[in-house]
């Protein structure tokens, strides 16, 4: 398959998000490239997670928030009247800060998604579970105890299980909200490596507060500051030569 370098997967147009009177995201316009790792960076409270959660509409799941603007995924406006929210979310796997396994067995955690989307055949489910556990690099560790509670896994294993679970619903996009922040260095490295492998087939968007992580894995950088999109571009260019003084200050560690 020929890769189109400039093709964008998600287009954000005039996005504004308000929590009550708090203007959390200010007129964001952004194209997120297809099958690349995009890292959203910026100081705490700058709206990184808000931006990420607006992509799969988790933001409006809880009420108390007003969202203006458009987000186009494959040309479909996910905030449009026609949009089907479960369908949108199925397109995107989410890795949260703290891995959230479901209160069921390892097997059922992965089979949960496929099951609600209609897969009932045991043989198929077995294959799905095995395949995605392998992709997430967890298969060898858990193959003998698939029916044990997922909550007994270590945090690092749980995060990889969450990744496998997200992939099992066959998304196109993987969203990560500081996916390594609760993990030990070894597990973090595992997750990072897997994300880099996955960009062959998926568009990856990661929020991170670890600059070195962004340098290691990102192809594209989005820098937010106080709800504003300050700078975005190819990672190499942004890191080498940021044009905005705020980006420069952040990269130097002067604001955090």
């Amino acid at each position, binding site marked *: 398959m020929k890769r189109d370098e400039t093709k964008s997967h998600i287009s954000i147009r005039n996005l504004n998000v308000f929590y009550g009177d708090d203007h959390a995201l200010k007129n964001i316009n952004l194209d997120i490239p297809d099958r690349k790792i995009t890292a959203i960076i910026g100081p705490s409270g700058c709206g990184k997670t808000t931006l990420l959660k607006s992509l799969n509409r*988790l933001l409006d799941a809880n009420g108390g928030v007003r969202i203006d603007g458009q987000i186009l995924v494959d040309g479909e406006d996910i905030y449009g009247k026609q949009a089907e929210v479960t369908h949108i*979310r199925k397109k995107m796997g989410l890795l949260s800060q703290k891995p*959230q396994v479901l209160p069921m*067995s390892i097997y059922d955690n992965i089979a949960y*998604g496929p099951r609600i989307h209609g897969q009932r055949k045991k043989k198929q489910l077995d294959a799905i579970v095995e395949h995605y556990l392998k992709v997430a690099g967890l298969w060898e560790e858990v193959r003998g105890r698939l029916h044990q509670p997922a*909550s007994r896994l270590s945090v690092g294993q749980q995060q990889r299980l969450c990744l496998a679970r997200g992939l099992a619903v066959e998304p196109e996009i993987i969203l990560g909200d500081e996916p390594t922040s609760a993990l030990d260095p070894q597990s973090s490295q595992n997750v990072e490596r897997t994300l880099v492998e996955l960009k062959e087939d998926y568009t990856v968007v990661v929020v991170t507060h670890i600059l070195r992580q962004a340098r290691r894995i990102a192809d594209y950088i989005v820098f937010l500051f106080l709800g504003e999109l300050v700078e975005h571009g190819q990672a190499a260019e942004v890191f080498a030569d940021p044009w905005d003084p705020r980006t420069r200050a952040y990269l130097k560690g002067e604001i955090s």
Partner: protein
Amino acid sequence: MNNPLSDGRLRRRKWIEGFFKILMVGSTALVIGSLLLIIGTIIWKGLPALSLSMVTQTPKGGYYLGKEGGILNAIVGSLYLALGATAIALLFSLPIVLYLNFYARRNSKTAVITRFAFDVLWGIPSIVYGAFGFVLMVFFGLRASLLAGTITVALLELPIMSRAIDEVMRLVPKELEEASYSLGATRFETAVKVVLKQCLPGILTAGLIAFGRGIGDAASVLFTAGFTDRVPTSLLQPAATLPLAIFFQLGTPFPEVRDRAYASAAVLTLIILLISLVSRGLVKKFTKHIIK
């Protein structure tokens, strides 16, 4: 360093620390002590009358409520009533609580009013439920019966159970719901397949609290379930209950029958104890997958 002022202050703080510790330990001991005292008294007073026939036979022996025979009528009546009422209450509690937590917006008017209503209902004395049940009964042309009693007790249990489940459900981390949503699950799928599973121990406990309240309540069944010497064989027959059996037995002038009241109380306590133990075991079994 050896500032006498700070020395005095330190002693004072230590004294306060010690005083409140004694207060806490004392209060705890008081609770455990009263529990043991209550159980002890009931067993001590009831033991002479407690026999196998007490739990296997219906009242016999001529005198009011019987000097002989047993209280099988009240045991079976109470179990029917409390189990039925708890089942009905659960059937209505779950949808209410799921609605409050998944569909009504947090702190929306509906949610606030509903929770307030439950708090008020919780506080209404059971005799008022009894009176209300009686009015309902008359309205529907029912006699005092197992059915009328069960419905009244279910009404009594509903707010207790709903609020207890609601409290547990509010503690479920938002992120757990988000994990399910992000896989494309609907609210309903998330509620039933993830949140109910996570709340199962809490639901069981709520059921137990409601059951205990239902089986132990006398006032609500006084007019609605009636009383009889026989084990009910239909929903439309009156049903005896343990609290009322105790009430009537204690009210007789015969010491032998009054002893039987304590035996009945011991049986009632035992039933609640047994059910607590069984559900403890069940909770253990169900908590296997719970996310802590």
